């Protein structure tokens, strides 16, 4: 089972691939929209990539609850 830090780092890699943002910026307390400037379509791409990478399912109606990187990491931890 992956640690919180491993999931965060994995997610940071995906954010970097989709948006070009420096992976080091992607810390647990950062908000996707406010701090990282990830728009809603990029968020969909990150979610789909995360589903594949972590073997989880993140339905559309859950995505809006994932406001921070920490929210997303917790959700993935809860699913895997």
């Amino acid at each position, binding site marked *: 089972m992956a640690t919180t830090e491993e999931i965060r780092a994995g997610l940071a890699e995906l954010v970097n691939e989709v948006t070009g943002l420096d992976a080091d910026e992607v810390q647990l307390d950062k908000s996707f929209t406010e701090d990282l400037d990830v*728009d*809603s*379509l990029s*968020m*969909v*791409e990150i*979610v*789909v990539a995360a589903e594949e990478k972590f073997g989880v399912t993140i339905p*559309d109606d859950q995505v809006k609850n994932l406001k921070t990187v920490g929210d997303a990491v917790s959700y993935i931890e809860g699913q895997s």
Partner: protein
Amino acid sequence: MRLRETPTTSSAVLGVGSYRPSRVVPNAEIVERIDSSDEWIQQRSGIVERRFATDDETVVSMAVASARQALEEAGVDAAQVDCVVVATVSHFLQTPSAASMIAFELGTERAAAFDISAACAGFCHGVALASDMVRGGSARHVLVIGVEKLSDQTDPTDRGSAFIFADGAGAVVVGPSEEPGISPVVWGSDGEQYDLIRSREDWRDVLAADEPRMPHLVMQGNAVFRWASYEMAKVARETIAAAGITVEDLDLFVPHQANMRITDAMARALKLPEHVRIARDIAHQGNTSAASIPLALRAMLDDGTARSGDLALIIAFGAGLAYAAQVVRVP
């Protein structure tokens, strides 16, 4: 008694035509009513400007203009057309079809004519029908026209769609060919997602309201983006396999011009090789639903991006949800 069967032949696209409405509408004209900016629209859709038809540019007149160009390019006379298939969601007369008026205006000699309702997926549905008609012997030359006037149905105050939809027409002539020029279609629908893109309400509900208003198109953008980008990439792969080729054999990728971000995401998911030229007509034409693929292909032929003999993957997807895709050889 054994009934007579018609001899079969292969089918191909013989000519491509389009019609771009005269009025260019830049993002600056859209932004005020949706509290947005040119930059915001371009970032989310890749759209710089779109075309809106004037009152004189009707569904029938735009369709006829695009069809005339397709016929001329194909070297086929209107009198040789056996069937006219019109894909549209913008013909506001419940009956008769737009196709019968278009066939008449073109000067066909009593060609069979009907409309199909498959929204943004309509053009590739039409190509599938036309190809099978030609191969099956029920028609020799078929006009497939995608035409839309979505500006009539767009809510200019809806942040999710006001900047997306546009107007235009595109057409192809499908006819007999010695070599197969149109692959088997891969198509389908997913009615579970019926509400993702739709007219807001049905006409009877509109008329029952105290203040009747146009049932505008409404769309759940993020869910559509997810479906179109990823599920459609799978359909694209199936289509390439059904055509008996590999992604390396493709020259052109001409998806329905829904949103530049969808095109980009699909291209990444498909791992298209660098040599594959990608249609990006949406930047200047917006999303013209059933008309977008022939509009984009015509533009690529005109600027030299597409050449005769190229293999193009065409894939159309939209309300229904409905989708259809083929590999076609460019005439």
